[in-house]
């Protein structure tokens, strides 16, 4: 029973506080109609409105929950909206026009908006109620999964669709071992055809997810908590966490109980009204012309139509468009829209497949028009294909070029390769990670006169997360600013020259000072900036060893003070431990230093050394003096240079060891220490293929085998793990040393500043490196000689220099006189 007095405003009650509901309210607030309404929002979850799409990013650790919040509680207050979160509506009385919440609250409405979303589908199998079983639907599920990832090790995800794969990848990122069970023979079978699904599976398999395809889950086993998953064919997978992600179904219970017309979802007409004209519905709970919805793009369209209708525009109608799917897994690019395969003999499929590069493209044509596209590995043309499908454009003229993408297709056609972004609707989402649309990006570019990708990134956050949409953002930039081609990648805003051009000019025109480089190449700033100065300093140092005088003022603080700055302004100090080998005397000296200077944290690093953390800057010279006098030198743990050479114990102790990996590691470290490189460089030597030193994710990794050594290059850990490529196998330690030195010199001379070996190797190609470092012995020797020459000037312990008084001003504050 409602006791509220009749307000002059129309009372709009919104059931659901999810993305579709609040997008509708936002659209309404932006329209003229907003003044007509007083709005009350009921949400089942005890949170303000958040971006459900980003839960994958929260799980994978790319985002915090706070970053996914779309509207804060303050936003509701500021807009005069009453938010009732954590108290779901349990009944609608259409006669009295009221809703009743779980806690018994009764609220009257004039217009009602249902946006009850969807529920995860659950298979009918035993064991669903066991602790450790959850869905992947809301933040509570993510919290359960994160809690499990902290204490447990084995996860099984059931369902190999979009959601299941993102859940599996997120849990893998959180350190769990992950198995994925999928009913069908290939992954994402509703979005990808068999070859693309297989390529996806192979890529994820390489990243350590185990797959059980064609796997029928029979039951989830366990007594007090989940213990594993039993498959119908007898396979059993042990598990501490089971995530169900087999799909969703519209949540229609409330509408059904209220007697509204329902099908699979709540039936809505083109104006987003249900069978009761006072009640609207949007989002995953609705069924429109027989279709239900699970992707975000049509929800935005529905929200817009519904808001227009609420604001009094009776002409607004919803029509579903061709939809595209993409997967939010960093480094894996998948795109799918429309049909997956030819539906009848008149349809044509055109396929391009390059297994070596991991690229697959298929387009499906019907009556000269594009009706489907499946892309794997290279998705740059996805939005273009989607637009062609939506426009129902006749593409017969480009038929044979279509699969090669837009640039190639249009280059050969009459149509000039002009703006393709013109036809794209403003609400087309460009950046999936941050939910940034074309309209938002274009508006920022125009209003703030942005001219570079970096600027667009800092103003809008578009392409700032995974970077997959960078090329589209650049395209939009070109479209808005009218620039004919995408801006060239320069070192920084100070110059129009690229890294390669600057490096070439330094050697060819014999430029030996920063001023000479800047004046010769027409720098726009007299003394550069924090981006170009460190790059120029390195390039000059590399080109003119012994001649160029290093500029401390163009180095990042860590390289200037030879220690790592920490977030509170203190420093960490890491002495070198050759090949990870230390002695009782060294350990005693480190312990004494920790005591004497009250160093709060002493930690063993991943590179087999000891880190002293929390050293005050003023204490650095004294700390170094004490370490120096025990025979230890700087570990260069702060440098764009050689960091560590990690080793296993090798044949000296290990029963599997084939060679003296420790000894070889020490020789490599003695050869390479002190060298400055474009980015940090890490080496490792493993004594046998069991690879305990993890040599396959190092810049240079040596894996010893019976009678030889495999030299591996271009690996790294980090955000995007890259496994090394095998350069060659050699028979002697001398060859290992020479090839390593030559490889590092080629990297030093060729790579861009702040480019690690992994992206550099990927950029120039293994063959180009092999040609100079392996096949051409004279060239190898020349590179190695240049490396050795440069090392003559580089192998000076920076700590000893400073203990002796160099740069003293750096370590003492100014005093009042």
């Amino acid at each position, binding site marked *: 029973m409602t006791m509220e007095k009749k307000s002059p405003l129309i009372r709009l009650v919104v059931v659901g506080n999810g993305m579709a509901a609040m997008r509708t309210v936002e659209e309404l607030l932006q329209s003229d109609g907003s003044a007509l309404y007083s709005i009350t929002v009921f949400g089942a979850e005890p949170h303000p409105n958040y971006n459900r799409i980003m839960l994958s990013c929260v799980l994978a650790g790319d985002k915090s929950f706070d970053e996914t919040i779309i509207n804060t509680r303050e936003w509701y207050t500021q807009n005069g909206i009453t938010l009732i979160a954590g108290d779901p509506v349990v009944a609608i009385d259409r006669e009295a026009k009221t809703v009743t919440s779980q806690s018994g609250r009764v609220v009257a409405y004039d217009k009602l908006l249902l946006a009850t979303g969807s529920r995860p589908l659950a298979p009918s199998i035993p064991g669903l109620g066991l602790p450790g079983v959850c869905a992947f639907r809301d933040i509570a599920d993510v919290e359960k999964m994160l809690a499990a990832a902290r204490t447990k090790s084995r996860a099984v995800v059931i369902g190999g669709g979009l959601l299941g794969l993102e859940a599996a990848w997120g849990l893998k990122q959180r350190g769990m071992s992950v198995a994925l069970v999928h009913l069908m023979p290939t992954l994402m079978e509703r979005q990808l055809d068999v070859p693309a699904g297989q390529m996806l599976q192979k890529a994820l398999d390489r990243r350590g997810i185990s797959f059980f395809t064609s796997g029928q889950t029979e039951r989830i086993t366990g007594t007090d908590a989940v213990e594993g998953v039993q498959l119908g064919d007898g396979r059993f997978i042990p598990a501490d966490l089971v995530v169900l992600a087999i799909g969703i179904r519209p949540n229609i219970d409330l509408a059904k109980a209220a007697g509204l017309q329902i099908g699979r979802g709540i039936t809505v007409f083109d104006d987003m009204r249900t069978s009761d004209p006072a009640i609207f519905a949007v989002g995953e709970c609705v069924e429109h012309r027989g279709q239900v919805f699970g992707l975000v793009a049509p929800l935005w369209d529905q929200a817009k139509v519904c808001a227009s209708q609420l604001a009094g525009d009776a002409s607004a109608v919803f029509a579903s468009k061709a939809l595209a799917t993409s997967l939010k897994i960093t480094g894996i690019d998948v795109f799918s829209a429309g049909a997956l395969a030819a539906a009848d003999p008149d349809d044509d499929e055109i396929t391009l497949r390059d297994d070596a590069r991991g690229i697959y493209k298929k387009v499906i044509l019907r009556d000269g028009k594009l009706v489907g596209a499946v892309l794997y590995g290279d998705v740059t043309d996805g939005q273009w294909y989607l637009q062609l499908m939506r426009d129902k454009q006749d593409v017969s003229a480009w038929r044979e070029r279509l699969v090669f993408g837009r640039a190639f297709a249009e280059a050969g056609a009459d149509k000039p390769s002009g703006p393709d972004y013109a036809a794209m609707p403003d609400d087309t989402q460009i950046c999936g990670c941050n939910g940034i649309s074309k309209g938002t990006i274009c508006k920022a570019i125009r209003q*703030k006169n942005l001219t570079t990708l970096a*600027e667009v990134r*800092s*103003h809008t956050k578009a392409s700032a997360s995974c970077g997959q949409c960078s090329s589209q953002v650049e395209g939009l930039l070109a479209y808005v600013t009218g620039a004919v081609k995408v801006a060239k990648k320069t070192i920084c805003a100070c110059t129009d020259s690229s890294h390669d051009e600057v490096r070439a000019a330094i050697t060819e025109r014999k430029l030996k000072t920063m001023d000479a480089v800047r004046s010769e190449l027409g720098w726009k*700033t*007299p*003394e*550069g*900036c*924090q981006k170009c*100065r*460190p790059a120029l300093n390195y390039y000059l140092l590399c080109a003119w060893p012994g001649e160029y005088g290093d500029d*401390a*003022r*163009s*180095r*990042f*603080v*860590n390289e*200037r*003070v030879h220690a790592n*700055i920490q*977030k509170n*302004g203190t420093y960490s100090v890491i002495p070198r431990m050759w090949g990870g080998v230390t002695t009782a005397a060294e350990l005693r000296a480190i312990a004494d230093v920790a005591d004497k200077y009250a160093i709060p944290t002493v930690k063993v690093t991943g590179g087999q050394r000891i880190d002293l953390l929390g050293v005050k800057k003023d204490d650095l010279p004294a700390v170094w003096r004490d370490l120096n006098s025990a025979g230890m030198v700087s570990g260069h743990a702060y440098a764009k240079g050689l960091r560590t050479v990690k080793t296993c114990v090798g044949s000296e102790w290990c029963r599997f060891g084939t060679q003296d990996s420790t000894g070889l590691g020490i020789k490599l470290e003695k050869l390479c220490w002190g060298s400055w490189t474009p980015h940090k460089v890490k080496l490792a030597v493993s004594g046998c293929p069991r690879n305990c030193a993890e040599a396959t994710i190092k810049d240079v990794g040596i894996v010893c085998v019976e009678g030889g050594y495999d030299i591996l290059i271009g690996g790294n850990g980090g955000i995007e793990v890259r496994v090394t490529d095998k350069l060659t196998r050699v028979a002697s330690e001398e060859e290992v040393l020479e090839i390593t030195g030559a490889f590092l010199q080629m990297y030093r001379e060729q790579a861009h500043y702040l480019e690690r070996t992994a992206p550099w190797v990927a950029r120039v190609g293994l063959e180009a490196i092999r040609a100079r470092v392996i096949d051409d012995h004279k060239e190898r020797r020349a590179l190695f000689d240049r490396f050795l020459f440069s090392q003559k000037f580089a192998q000076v312990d920076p700590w000893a220099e400073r203990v002796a008084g160099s740069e003293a*001003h750096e370590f003492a*504050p*100014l*005093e*009042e*006189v």
Partner: protein
Amino acid sequence: MSTANWKKIGRLESIPVRGSRRLCSSHFGRPIAVFRTSDDRVFALVDECPHKKGPLSEGIVAGDTVACPLHGMVIGLSDGVAVAPDEGAVETLPVSVVDGEIYLHLPEPGVSG
């Protein structure tokens, strides 16, 4: 203006060109950095980046800006204001160089600004 609060803090040469040093005493509990540009202008700022309080005195000085070493926010030395699109500002302190000696204007404790 009274000169009572002008403190001598050392000679110009004691600060490296395109560099900075931190003052041993603090300003209402906050550290102070004194900068010297390539054309020998001197600036004093509270040594805390408006972003995450990084020590600006450890940043790279270019022209009359400094880039914070922690996350790269660029701050104007003359006004303490972050270069767009970043937002934020740090307090600056009056400083002058007379006969090669740097003087910093420090308000007495308890006296505002």
